[in-house]
């Protein structure tokens, strides 16, 4: 076995931030299990990416290079990493939990009879504390990931001797700053043939033209499924108007067509950082949080005091939005007089 290998991903020609976070998670595992931490990057031309990694604290860097890796396809990436992992036999393979990773890492793990422990938010040292534990083996890592849309945490263990595959959630680990002497850089050339690639991906394109710029809004009132029906939207619209705020929404509101998709905040929508983000009837799933956690001040109105949105809110009102929102609209109006 050859230690921890972190699979770094490129974005616009550079290593993406989430990949540095994955490297930090790799270091946590490496420290816990006294294993070396190494990096691998896949693509058609990876020299400058490898150069970027070389200043970080990694033992070895492998450029997994092939012309057929120029454009991402799950078939090519799975094949390339499969061959690399068979050759290297890592103890751990760590990925950032990106859309690309969710598309191929589960197949890759399955090829080894393994299961990706996906979207991990924390790594602890074992043993897993469980009443039915008979023989807790000290030192095995415990992987924490969210269940029930963030309402609960689950602790997972990996059993057996095979490679353990892990992906880490955006923002869960602080991107590695540790620098060290340049690591050795090697090239691994996988065998891939055009005929093995079954899908034909097109160029990325943007959705419909953007007419609102939530990114520069100072005040945002954002509405979630707690609003229940499209007919109820005017009560949040009135609050937004009173505050001089833009109206935004969580995904289900846009999925239902109640507000246009350009008003969706989150991983598949807009990223916003207003002075005030007022979340009304939004539970606070991670895909929503990544789009708004940069806000200066977050206020949540939710009837469930355990809703994950309260994890990141500065102020909260626990109550029925149909009572609280109209009261707040009044309070804002009279304060402005």
């Amino acid at each position: 076995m050859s230690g921890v290998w972190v699979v770094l991903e490129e974005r616009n020609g550079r290593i993406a931030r989430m990949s540095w976070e994955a490297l930090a998670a790799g270091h946590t595992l490496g420290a816990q299990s006294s294993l070396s931490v190494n990096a691998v990057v896949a693509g058609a031309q990876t020299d400058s990416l490898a150069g970027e990694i070389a200043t970080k604290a990694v033992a070895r860097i492998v450029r997994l290079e092939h012309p057929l890796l120029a454009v991402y396809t799950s078939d090519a990436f799975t094949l390339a990493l499969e061959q690399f992992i068979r050759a290297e036999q890592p103890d751990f393979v760590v990925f950032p939990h990106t859309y690309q990773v969710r598309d191929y890492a589960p197949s890759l793990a399955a090829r080894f009879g393994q299961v990706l422990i996906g979207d991990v938010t924390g790594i602890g040292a074992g043993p897993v504390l469980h009443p039915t534990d008979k023989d807790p083996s000290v030192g095995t890592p415990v992987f924490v990931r969210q269940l029930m849309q963030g309402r609960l945490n689950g602790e997972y263990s990996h059993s057996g001797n095979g490679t353990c595959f892990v992906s880490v959630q955006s923002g869960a680990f602080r991107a590695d700053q540790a620098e060290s002497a340049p690591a050795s850089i090697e090239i691994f050339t996988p065998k891939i043939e055009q005929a093995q690639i079954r899908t034909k991906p097109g160029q990325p394109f943007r959705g419909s033209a953007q007419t609102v710029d939530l990114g520069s809004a100072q005040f945002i009132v954002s509405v979630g499924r707690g609003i229940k029906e499209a007919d109820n939207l005017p009560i949040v619209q009135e609050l937004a108007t009173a505050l001089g705020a833009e109206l935004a929404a969580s995904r289900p509101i846009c999925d239902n067509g109640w507000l246009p998709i350009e008003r969706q905040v989150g991983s598949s929508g807009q990223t916003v950082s207003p002075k005030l983000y007022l979340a009304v009837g939004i539970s606070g799933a991670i895909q929503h949080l990544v789009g708004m956690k940069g806000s200066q001040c977050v206020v949540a109105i939710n009837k469930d005091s355990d809703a994950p949105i309260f994890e990141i809110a500065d102020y909260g009102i626990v109550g029925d939005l149909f009572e609280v929102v109209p009261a707040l609209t009044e309070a804002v109006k009279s304060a402005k007089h």
Partner: protein
Amino acid sequence: MKIVVAIKQVPERDAQVHIHSTSNWIEEEDMQWALNESDAYALEEALQLKEKHGGEVVVVSAGPERVGSTIREALAKGADRAIHIDCDDLNQRDALGVARLLSEAIRAETPDLTLTGLQSDDLGYGQTGVILAELLGLPHASLILHVEKTEAGLTVKRELEEGWFQTIELPVPAVLTIQSGGNKLRYATLMGIKKAKTKEIRRVTSQDIGKVAPPVVVLERISVPQKQKSTQILGGSPKEAATALVEKLKFEARIL
């Protein structure tokens, strides 16, 4: 086109969840259950494809007896028949274990297209569809919002991050994982509910399907996340809380 849709029954969104005394799953008694959200969109996509191109929609669900209600809901919406893989130990299986169960049932159907939801709302692995494709030896695409049948196979619209999309062409048979929001969901009609009663639900036990490999990844314990940040909760009547909030925003946060 013959389409199989994998549907999962999950706790209803607003249901209270309590941790079971074994501490590795939730209390299931008195729980209200619903069809997983992205699976509802997968079913909708399948029904629309059938309406356009003809064929058959078969739903498959693994779970204990209670999942029958979710299966009937899918039949009432228009699925033609169902396979229920009876299995009481879903939570002790990992994603590969569940995918193995589903893959055996699906393989026997030889569908042109297999759809799953993107992610289950309870365990949230977001993996079962992708693993299914691997086990069935089929190409796949994930996070799909729209499916079009072409001469050569399929053209699908895939969601990328931050408002970007991409189209992907792939041959059939194939597996797709469906993201929410691509279609408007239909409701079951009274007529549909009536008709559902006559539709076939074939039950197979997980033992029929084969030996269970021990899980590689084990859910050991669940817990309520510890609060990391102290939110100032403003109490009192709605009016009092609203007034207090405005004061805070004005004089403490200084943003109003």
